[in-house]
C-alpha cells in the first residue's frame, strides 16, 4: 500500500495531495501541468516536497517530521519516463543488468515477458521508440522494485507503436504483482490498464473514479 501525503511548491502552483494506492494499477490522470509527474518524482525521491510523508507498506521513504528522506537509490522503485533514458554507452543487455537484482523474477522471466531476447546485443540508438520503452520497462522490473512508477511511458510513441507496447504493460500488470502508479492523460490507455483513477487538477486530486467512469467523462481531456 502506497501512502502519499505531500505539499510543496512546484513552479507556479502548490502541489497538495493525499491519497493511497493499493495493488494493481493506479492512474494519475489530468491535464498537463496538473502536478502528476511531480508526485512521481516526489515518490522516487527526485523532488523533495516541503512537508508530508511517503510510505510504502511499513517502509517510510519520506517524512521530514521524523527527519527521514531516503535517497533515490535506496527507495527500490522502478521508474520509467516518457523518454526511455537508456544508457547510450551500454548495449541492451548491460542496460538491463545495470540495476538487476534477481529476486522476485529472474532475468529469463523478464526477457520472456517483454520479448527482449532479440534485442540484447543492440545499442540503444538502433532501437525504435517502442523497443526502447520495453527495454526501459524490463530494466526497471529487473531492479526488483517494490512499485513501478510509470510517467507517460507511451506518450512519446506514435499510435501504432503505442498499440505494440500496451499489451506488454498489460502483461506486467497481469503476470507480476508489482503495484503500478501510471501517469497519463490518455483516456484509452487508462481505461485499458488502470484499476483506479485519481483525477488531478492544479496540484490537487479533484476526483476518484473507476476507469470506466473516467473514460466517459467529458472534462479532464
Amino acid at each position, binding site marked *: 500500500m502506497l501512502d502519499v501525503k505531500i505539499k510543496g511548491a512546484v513552479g507556479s502552483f502548490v502541489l497538495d495531495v493525499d491519497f493511497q494506492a493499493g495493488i494493481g494499477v493506479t492512474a494519475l490522470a489530468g491535464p498537463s501541468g496538473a502536478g502528476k509527474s511531480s508526485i512521481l518524482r516526489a515518490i*522516487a*525521491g*527526485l523532488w523533495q516536497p516541503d512537508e508530508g510523508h511517503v510510505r510504502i507498506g511499513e517502509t517510510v521513504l519520506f517524512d521530514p517530521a521524523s527527519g527521514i528522506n531516503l*535517497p*533515490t*537509490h*535506496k*527507495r*527500490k*522503485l*522502478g*521508474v520509467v*519516463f516518457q*523518454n526511455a*533514458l537508456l*544508457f*547510450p*554507452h551500454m548495449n541492451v543487455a548491460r542496460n538491463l543488468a*545495470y*540495476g538487476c*537484482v534477481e529476486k522476485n523474477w529472474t532475468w529469463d522471466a523478464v526477457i520472456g515477458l517483454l520479448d527482449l531476447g532479440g534485442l540484447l546485443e543492440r*545499442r540503444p*540508438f538502433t532501437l525504435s521508440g517502442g523497443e526502447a520503452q520495453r527495454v526501459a520497462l524490463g*530494466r*526497471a522490473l529487473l*531492479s526488483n522494485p517494490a512499485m513501478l512508477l510509470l510517467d507517460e511511458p507511451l506518450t512519446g510513441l506514435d499510435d501504432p507503436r503505442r498499440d505494440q507496447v500496451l499489451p506488454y504493460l498489460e502483461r506486467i500488470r497481469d503476470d507480476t504483482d508489482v503495484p503500478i502508479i501510471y501517469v497519463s492523460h490518455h483516456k484509452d490507455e487508462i481505461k485499458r490498464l488502470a484499476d483506479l483513477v485519481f483525477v488531478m487538477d492544479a496540484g490537487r486530486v479533484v476526483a476518484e473514479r473507476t476507469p470506466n467512469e473516467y473514460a466517459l467523462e467529458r472534462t479532464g481531456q
Partner: protein
Amino acid sequence: MIEAFNDTAVWEIVLLSLKVAGLAVLLSLPPALLVAKLLARPGLRGKAVISAFFHMPLVTPPVVTGYVLLNVFGKNGAIGSVLDNWGLGISFTWFGAALAAAVMAFPLILRPIRLAFEAQEPGLDEMAATLGASRLRRLFTIALPLAWPGVIAGTILGFAKALGEFGATITFVSNIPGETQTLSLAIYTLLQSPAGDSPALVLIGVAIAISFVAILISEILAGRWERKRVT
C-alpha cells in the same frame, strides 16, 4: 651548456619535460574531475565565483602565479617551510616544476571535462539512481564514461600546456639544467647565446613532434570512442 650539448643532453631534457608534464597532468586531473562535477551541478550557488577562482591561472600572468607558488611552497612559504622541515621541500626541484605546470594546466583540463558533464542528459543520472546506484557508482558508470571525450581533450590540452609552461616554472623553480630545465626553458636558454641556434632547433623539432603526437593520440582516442558509441 652549448659545448656539452649532445644527444644525451637532448634526451635528458626531453625525458625531464615528459616527466614534469606527465606528473603535472596526474596532479591536476583528479581535482579537475571533482571541480568539473561540482561546477556542472545545476543550481550551484556561487558558481561564477568558484569557476572564476579555478580559471585564474589562465588569465593571471604566469610570472604572478609563479610568485604566488614561491610564497606558498617556497622555503619560507606557509606550506613550503613545513615541507622543508620534513625534508620534502619542492622549491627548485623537478617536482616543483610539475606543481607549477599542474597549476597552470588546471583550467585547461577542467574546462572540457566540465562541458562534457554539463552536456549530459540529467535524466540518465536520475535513472541510474532509481536503479539503485549510489552517487559514487553513478559517477564511475554513467557520468565519467559519458564524459570520456572531454577527459581526453582536457588531458591532452593540460599535457601540452604543462610541456610548454615557462613563466610560472622559471619564477618558482628557476632554470636548473637536469632538474627544472624543461624543453621550453632549454630552448630559451640556448637562444640567448649566439652559438645556440642549431642545438635549439633540435629541441624545437622535438617539441613540435611531441605536440603533434599528443594531439594525434587525442584525435584517435576520441574517434574510437565515437565509433564505439554508434556501432
